[in-house]
């Protein structure tokens, strides 16, 4: 099976879906002539022309709204945000327009749109460029939120997101674009709303998504050497969340660590823990522990940044804590 980067996997998904359906178009800053700020859209303008790969002005609110409006009139836009930090300027269109249209029109106007781009921290980009917004977005009924961590998942989920008739928020990662993995040549789709068990183990569950899946897998490798076997559950879709997969894993291991990239307060992990306490109260052998970013804006200095981020060491410590080791 070919081994390709996460970036190439996304590029393939876009190319295939644009070839399949001419209502699909890509719009965002630098997606065309520049080939994408992170080169995700490389070659697409050449292949599909500037009507379907549209370089927008730096106007997040405006072009996100153009996307929603064009979806109301029958197109299937993919809107690229250079990063989700900048999408805050467009959040009105995601929350007040895209997520509300179907409901407030009494079911008449659905909005088939994908809002995608890198989410979370890269390296030393400072406070305004290093934010993980998945819990903000997953809070909103009327949209789906997807957060793939591997090239295989990125491709299969993006294709499904583009075919979905609802607004889908698609969270990538700057630190993920160069990561590699196996991606088959034949076409496949990964359904939205289903979690995936990435590693089976009976001692403790790590429930996570996105970039943190890579951390969880390293943790599982390292702990296996200590004969601690981790169930790594990759949520893949954060809304709707696959609650059944969470409870199945926790019922098996009786212990859980919830790992996320964003901040603690009202984070994705809070919701996961709520599902666990509701459905697995009698199964738990220890309180669930959460691993997340420190409750501060991201600092620039290398050592400070490192200590702010969730990582392998913090996750191992959390697993040992729930195992009373």
């Amino acid at each position, binding site marked *: 099976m070919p081994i390709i980067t996460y970036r190439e996997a996304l590029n393939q998904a876009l190319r295939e879906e644009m070839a399949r359906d001419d209502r699909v*178009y890509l719009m965002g800053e630098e997606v065309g002539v520049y080939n994408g700020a992170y080169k995700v859209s490389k070659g697409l303008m050449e292949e599909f022309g500037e*009507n379907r790969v549209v370089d*927008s*002005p730096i*106007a997040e*609110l*405006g*072009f*996100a*709204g*153009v*996307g*929603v*409006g*064009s*979806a*109301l*009139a*029958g*197109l299937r836009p993919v809107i690229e945000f250079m990063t989700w930090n900048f999408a805050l300027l467009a959040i*009105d*269109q995601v929350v*007040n*327009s895209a997520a509300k*249209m*179907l*409901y*407030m*029109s*009494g*079911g*008449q*106007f*659905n909005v*088939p749109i994908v809002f995608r781009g890198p989410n979370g921290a890269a390296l030393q980009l400072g406070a305004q460029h290093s934010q993980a917004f998945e819990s903000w977005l997953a809070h909103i*009924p*009327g949209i*789906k939120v997807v957060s793939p961590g591997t090239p295989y998942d990125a491709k299969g989920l993006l294709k*499904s997101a583009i*075919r*979905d*008739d*609802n607004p889908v928020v698609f969270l990538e990662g700057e630190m993920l674009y160069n990561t590699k993995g196996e991606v088959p040549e034949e076409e496949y789709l990964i359904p*939205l709303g289903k979690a995936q068990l990435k590693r089976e183990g009976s001692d403790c569950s790590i429930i996570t998504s996105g970039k943190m899946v890579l951390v969880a897998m390293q943790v599982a490798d390292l702990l296996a050497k200590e004969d601690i076997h981790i169930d790594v559950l990759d949520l893949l879709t954060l809304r709707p969340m696959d609650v059944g997969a969470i409870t199945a894993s926790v019922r098996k291991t009786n212990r859980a660590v919830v790992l996320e990239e964003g901040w603690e307060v009202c984070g994705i992990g809070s919701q996961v823990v709520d599902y666990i306490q509701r459905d697995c109260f009698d199964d738990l052998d220890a309180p669930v522990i959460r691993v997340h970013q420190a409750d501060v804006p991201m600092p620039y200095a290398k050592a400070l940044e490192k200590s702010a981020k969730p990582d392998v060491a913090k996750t191992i410590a959390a697993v040992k804590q729930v195992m009373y080791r």
Partner: protein
Amino acid sequence: MATKKRTDAKSASDPALDREMLHSMLLQRRFEEKVGEAYALGKIGGFCHLYIGQEAVSTGIVGQLRHDDYVIGTYRDHGQALVRGITPRAIMAELFGRIDGCSRGKGGSMHLFDRNTNFLGGHGIVGSHVPLAAGVGFAIKYRGGDQVIVCFMGDSVVNIGAFHEALNMAALWKLPCLFVIENNRYGMGTSVERAAAVDDLSKRALGYKNMDGIIIDGMDVHAVRAASAAAIERARTESLPSLLEVRTYRFRGHSMSDAVSGTYRPKEELEEYTRLDPIFSLKAKMIADRVMTENDWDALEQEVAATVLDAWDFADQSPEPPLAALYEDVLVDTTS
């Protein structure tokens, strides 16, 4: 681009069209007067913004659109919805929060929608729908169609970022959009003079190439129709956007909780505009032109009253949405 005054536009007298426009405006007026009554009785809840005084704008513009064109607007949307052809019954039922409402009782006064007439909603966030309109224009052009989208907005919208982002893209990409500012002189209680650092709002068009800026007398339905006809033609045949500043006035408060004249506008100003009432101006002209008699007018009033009463009765008898509807329409379940 240049801003032009086109308030003097005269159309050749067309009695049939005059009657149609008079009917269209009177229906909006009497319908909304009933809405006011229903609100006072508690049959309508929430925010409710009457359009009374501004009827010439919707009649003059929406009345001449093609069936496959698009209309989008603000929370002050009853007038445009009626002219677009959503039935008085479906609108009243929506205001009453009933299942037969045009948004199945889920939208209310501020969110009237209708797929059959390409009525893309009343929107509640000031300025937010202007980029949506540009997006509809984008889709029309993407498919090579010759429809147009008309986007209604209040005067306060010219000061918000979404407006400028949308106009920039519409002008840059030559999208077939009419951006219609209904300048009723106030955004809630703040006068245009106290909010906008520009004298004529139409001058906002000057910042964008390919964009016409036009000032229109919104109390004269013929002027509205003639000037917007040119802008519609420009959008349809040349795919170029226009910014229309239609000068109008609302005769009622900002919403049902606002007194009619309020603290922010003098009574005399209201009285002055009331004398320019677009409906009674047209009526007077038609009587002077001898294309209508007082008896014809009475008959028109009766016809409109019957329509409005029928809408009320229909809405009153329509059931509330079943509680199961609460969880419907959050997402569609198909993946195509």
